[in-house]
């Protein structure tokens, strides 16, 4: 939509463009009391008329520059003399690194003084007479425009691009295709997802290992009201893929009174009221770590999704879209808690193929 259908009279009257040339002073008269009176006369500063004030300014500027030199010397001295592990008490910030404090403040003063000196110099000693400069339209004059258009047409004609269609089309084809190589090269940025997001390290018979003690858990280790974090047997911190595996396998174990468990499947998958849920939030994957003993709610500290562990870990508040996956657990012959399989659904954030 062009502006042509906006009638010209809707635009404000041409700005006082031609009324007065720059620099001229339009005297307010009977016809227009709102006219531009022009630039007010320059008012002298004290430094312009009193040489003593001017030298005072000069001394101030010189003082600031000298202060900067001293501060730089102080910076170097601090760097050389202060032990880097020394801590000092500074009111009201508290205990801080002496080195960081001294270096930062001396550097700050050294820089600030240069700036303050320069600005004071500009404000008090350099001319403060306002100068008027003319503006010129950004768009080119019509003759220039016509010349450019003519030149372009000539150039385009000489290239014969419009006439020799075969050249044009094949060139566009070549230019459009070659970036594909760049796209193809990006393929090896990573492997394809496959079903990797559906599986974790958990499988039938894997013991639940306490994250803190690194010992396999027995039912008696899990007290009512406590929150225990567990990892699958065999996964060690020094393992190369530890971060990747724990990001999916991290487990959260609580013991409820079996009669408090409202969800039938949850009760079936538990052992003596001990339930094991994925610790990874189904919203965007933060580890859930806040447990409320009385209500059996867990809260994700990142975005406050809240799940009810006594009711199939369904979402009772917050942005998560589905319940936490539960791990089916039991006890092996030696009395240790073990997994009875992998999670039946993918852990962590939802994704397109999750279904």
């Amino acid at each position, binding site marked *: 939509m062009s502006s042509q259908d*906006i009638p010209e009279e809707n635009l404000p009257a041409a700005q006082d463009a031609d009324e007065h040339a720059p620099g001229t002073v339009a005297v307010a008269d009977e016809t227009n009391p709102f006219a531009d009176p022009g630039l007010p006369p320059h008012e002298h500063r004290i430094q312009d008329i009193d040489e003593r004030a001017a030298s005072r300014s000069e001394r101030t500027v010189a003082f600031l520059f000298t202060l900067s030199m001293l501060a730089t010397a102080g910076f170097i001295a601090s760097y050389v003399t202060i032990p880097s592990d020394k801590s000092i008490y500074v009111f009201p910030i508290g205990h801080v690194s002496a080195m*960081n404090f001294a270096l930062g403040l001396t550097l700050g003063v050294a820089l600030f003084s240069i700036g303050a000196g320069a600005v004071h110099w500009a404000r008090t000693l350099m001319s*403060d007479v306002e100068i008027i400069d003319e503006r010129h339209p950004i768009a080119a004059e019509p003759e220039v425009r016509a010349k450019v258009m003519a030149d372009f047409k000539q150039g385009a004609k000489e290239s014969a691009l419009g006439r020799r269609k075969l050249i044009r089309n094949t060139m566009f084809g070549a230019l459009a295709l070659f970036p594909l190589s760049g796209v193809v090269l990006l393929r090896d940025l990573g492997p394809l*997802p496959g079903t990797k997001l559906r599986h974790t390290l958990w499988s039938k018979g894997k013991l639940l290992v306490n994250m803190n003690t690194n010992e396999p858990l027995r039912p008696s280790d899990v007290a009512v009201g406590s929150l225990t974090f567990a990892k699958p047997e065999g996964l060690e911190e020094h393992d190369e893929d530890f971060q990747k595996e724990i990001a999916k396998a991290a487990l959260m174990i609580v013991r409820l009174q079996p009669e408090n468990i409202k969800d039938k499947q949850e009760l079936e998958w538990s052992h003596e009221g001990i339930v094991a849920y994925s610790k990874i939030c189904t919203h965007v994957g933060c580890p859930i770590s806040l447990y409320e003993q009385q209500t059996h709610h867990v809260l994700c500290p990142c975005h406050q999704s809240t799940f009810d562990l006594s009711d199939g870990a369904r979402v009772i508040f917050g942005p998560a879209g589905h319940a936490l996956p539960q791990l089916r657990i039991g006890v092996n012959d030696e009395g240790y808690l073990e997994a009875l399989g992998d999670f039946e659904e993918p852990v962590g954030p939802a994704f397109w193929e999750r279904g």
Partner: protein
Amino acid sequence: MSTTTTSDSRSREKAPAGERVADWADGRLGIYSLAKANMRKIFPDHWSFMLGEVCLYSFIVIILTGVYLTLFFHPSMNEVEYHGSYVPLQGQLMSEAFNSTMHISFDVRGGLLIRQIHHWAALIFLAGMFVHMMRVFFTGAFRKPREVNWVFGFLLFVLGMFTGFTGYSLPDDLLSGTGVRFMEGAILSVPIVGTYLSFFLFGGEFPGGDFVARFYSVHVLLLPGIMLGLVVGHLILVFYHKHTQFAGPGKTNNNVVGMPLLPVYMAKAGGFFFLVFGVIAAIAAIAQINPIWGIGPYRPDQVSTGAQPDWYMGFSEGLIRVMPGWEINFWGHTLVLGVFIPLIIFPLVLVAIAVYPFIESWVTGDKREHHILDRPRNVPTRTAFGAAWISWYFVLLVGGGNDLWATHFHLSINSITWFVRIAFFVVPVLVFLATKRICLGLQRRDRDKVLHGRESGIIKRLPHGEFIEVHEPLSQDALHTLTAHEQYKPAEIGPTVDENGVERKVNGPERLRAKLSKGFYGEDNQIPKPTVEEYKEITSGHGHH
């Protein structure tokens, strides 16, 4: 060899060294024509014009300190055991990225200072761009011929956000790793390609061993390279367009009034660089930022409460926190609306402010150049839109910090979340209406001041006992300044039947424009500025006071 050449070359030899260097450079670079146009270039003075300078200077500080940090930082996710001088973390497993950041903070003298200057400067850079952008918005400095520069500035703001995000993710600490995990979860929510994008970005499953190195090249090379180009382009355009100025005596749309680049502006602007740098250094000396040693290295199964992104990412955090957890399952697929919708709104929040200038120029149909700034009150609809946008942004910031609001003000987190859900829709509307009213009120006040003068505070008793307050007429400077702004008339659709009785079709966009134009410049949407006739009638006496 003529004599003139000889005498010419002799005078050259006598010229001072500086002049000879300049001549040498001019003969090769043509610097004199550049200097002719720019050395005494005029820059108008106003406090708000320095906001952009804050951004430029903090950007330079970021580059200087960033280069220093690259000398010590190892962008690698190889796991190592910590054996540095910070005792509490001795023996901890951590990535080399975290380890080298610890090394910079505790074992490189001044390393902590440079790290803190870098981080503080980044926060100030983003805050500066936000405020600078608002200055440009509310004064209408984005109008022709500066639309392209507005877009450059907007891109700088957006790229700055992502440079900041990739930067604070590099130390691979528990807090930033949580942010990266959030990003991964958000990417997974993208329909069809989400899992592929995530696997390509992280080189496999999260967290993998690649993202620090990849973020590093994006953070130190790709994004800053683009930004540097945009900053240079931004500045070239500022020079080319010449700076805008506020209306006032002697200032027209065709001139620029102020101080010359050499010496005043150079001293002030150059000095201001040192002021900004000095203040940031002092902040870095006294205010700790991102103490990764207290946060610890990243583990996907650990987290702390109060996890917050840096402030400029806070509004996206708000979107994700308050969105209800909608998920649609169909034909074996999941549409994760609860995460995907915030991911879509995130850029839309930013684009809303970015496209405004183009909407306004379409509504006004104004194709002229504008170099005189608007006072925000004189363009009530624009000002109200800007204020509404800011309120929208801040509502989301509140949402992003809902846990902190809850703990600091002892509120229920559920109520805050519900408040933000409702306020997201309601607050911008309320702010829009309130701002518009305030602007119109201020316009009325200006009008009264022009027509009736300034309240002097002097109470006069008239012979018949009445008390009046004496109003002093304004100076001509003030009269001109208060009446210098332009007022558009609302665009009419015009006759739908031409002189031959043929009906013209009025299309949708045209009708929309007429409606918007009425909203901008219609009867109740701006106060007509006083005319000379009104002024004369009132000031011509007749016992007016």
